[in-house]
């Protein structure tokens, strides 16, 4: 990974041959482009590698891994919703030992830059997972760790960590301790909170180098033939283009708090309903330095690569030479509407 500066030559514009600097630096995590998969929407790489070279991604974000193997919930696990879907998978996965031995080793073998997503049912489990990860043979493929704090905390009657600033801070501080300093950690925030800025503050002050925003929203669908919940887990996470305005709002609020000096400045990875380059540009303009594509992958497996191309073209259209110049740009244009 010597050369991490990538310029994208946009294909579908009139100014053929013009280039945009798409490289990003996320708290020291330097990536050639800002596009990532969203955790849980891309499995662990092999499935998408037959559609595009996953080493072309800025980073591949793995499916959240916990300490032990998990079967996940029963089925049905999903319901289609307008411009989105509801899912209730239950963090199915092989457990951290098998993950590092098989999945991470494979990701390393194809040259992918890995943003590893970790979780636990207790703050201690988060730390244990991070510890195994950091001591694994393929750890040099890992460029950062994303901490999925939208997990029920068994020590607090199942309240998800992400809804409680103190519990979130505990987890982040423990994970931070287990990882080498040069590996940035990103707290993935839930939008289902009263004040997302408070959670963001707790995470950054506890040692998160950056934030990933947003996780799914809790939702529910009733099957009107059977008049019962459509997914076996009763409630599920809502994702897809339907939630994009929520992502834009959450990123905007946290970025605004950073610009005001209310919370420390930290890079934001934007995620939520991105399907096109224009969608990505909304999140960037609100304050995201990088972009994850999730549910859109189910519709188009190569969406992350396409969105990167479309985002570069959109930036060029607007006269930007560098992606980094567009991050949070909408905050500077408020005087035009007031």
């Amino acid at each position, binding site marked *: 990974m010597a050369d991490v500066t990538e310029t994208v030559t946009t294909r579908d514009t009139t100014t053929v041959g013009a280039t945009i600097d798409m490289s990003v630096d996320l708290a020291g995590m330097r990536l050639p482009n800002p596009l990532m998969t969203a955790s849980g929407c891309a499995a662990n790489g092999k499935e998408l590698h037959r559609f595009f070279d996953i080493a072309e991604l800025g980073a591949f974000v793995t499916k959240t891994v916990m300490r*032990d193997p998990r079967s996940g919930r029963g089925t049905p*696990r*999903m319901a289609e919703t307008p411009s989105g879907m509801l899912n209730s998978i239950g963090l199915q996965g092989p457990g951290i030992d098998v993950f590092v031995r098989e999945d991470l080793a494979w990701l390393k073998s194809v040259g992918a830059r890995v943003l590893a997503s970790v979780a636990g049912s207790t703050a201690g489990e988060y730390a244990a997972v991070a510890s195994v990860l950091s001591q694994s043979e393929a750890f040099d493929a890992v460029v950062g760790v994303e901490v999925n704090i939208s997990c029920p905390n068994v020590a607090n009657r199942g309240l998800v960590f992400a809804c409680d600033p103190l519990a979130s801070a505990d987890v982040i501080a423990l994970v931070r301790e287990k990882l080498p300093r040069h590996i940035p950690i990103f707290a993935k925030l839930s939008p289902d909170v009263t004040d997302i800025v408070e959670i963001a503050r707790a995470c950054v002050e506890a040692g998160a180098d950056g934030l990933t925003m947003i996780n799914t929203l809790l939702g529910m669908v009733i099957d009107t033939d059977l008049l019962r919940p459509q997914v076996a887990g009763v409630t599920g996470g809502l994702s897809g283009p339907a939630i994009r305005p929520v992502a834009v709002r959450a990123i905007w609020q946290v970025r605004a708090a950073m610009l005001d000096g209310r919370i420390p400045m930290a890079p934001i990875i934007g995620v939520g309903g991105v399907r096109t380059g224009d969608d990505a540009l909304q999140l960037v303009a609100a304050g995201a330095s990088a972009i994850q594509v999730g549910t859109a992958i189910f519709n188009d497996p190569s969406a992350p690569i396409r969105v990167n191309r479309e985002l570069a073209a959109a930036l060029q259209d607007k006269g930007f030479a560098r992606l980094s110049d567009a991050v949070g740009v909408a905050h500077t244009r408020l005087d035009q509407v007031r």
Partner: protein
Amino acid sequence: MSGTFPERTPQVTGELLSNRRVGAYHQLTFVAPDVAEVAEPGQFVAMAVGGDTSANLLRRCFSIHQVSPRDPDGGTVDIVVAARGAGTRWLTGLSAHDGVNIIGPLGRAFPLPEEPVAAVLVGGGYGSAPLFWLASILKERGCHVEMVLGAATTKRLFGVAEAGGAADGVTVTTDDGSTGVKGWVSDVLPDVIRRSQAGVVYGCGPMAMLRSITDVATAECAIAHVAVEESMACGVGVCMTCVMPVVGDDGLTRMVRSCVEGPTFRGDRVRWEAFDNGWCRVPEDALGAAAMRGH
């Protein structure tokens, strides 16, 4: 939990060549040479519906009915669709020359017997779609092929006329007796297996039917291979929604993805008892079930 993947899986815009009504269903033929050339019976395609800005993001998966890799129009792929929801209504409303984004072939094909044993192919409703193609391949290998087609009523049968040419013997059942034997496919299956001395039974259709096919085949000392119709969001192995409990070679039950480990399974490996009333629970002895008790 890993499937094996080809180096590249085609994702193409398939041009609709024809869309015709067959009983209660529509048979759609797409020009998709990359898909047609490599597909095998039992595999499926995942179709995007509603165009580039569709509010229905999830792919619709269909078993491949037949392929004509050397069609003069370019290799073609046929699927059979029942218009039931927004996506299938969009597909069945398409006209010739419309384009649809198709991914495929996906999943594991039906395993074929090494020896020319007799085979019974059982289809429920339009679940029979891939069986005619399978029948012709089995006959090329010297297998005696019997078909059993069942549905609620005549209109919901698929391929009865085609079956006569594809198989050596055909038995039809309907729940209401409007065509063939009144009853279920499982009522006639024991006799068909015995009469043909079949060593293998292939089945496609609803879960309850696949379970009874497996029970009958096992009782008659035949191996059952079934293709399931689990609902899928992506079809390519990333969404984890189409899982079902299946026993592996090591004797351990895992929640496996029917899109990559299936859609064809040995019937006696599926934990049928976990399916009940439209829900499938995780068996307590499944790998990783213990970790779910926390939450």
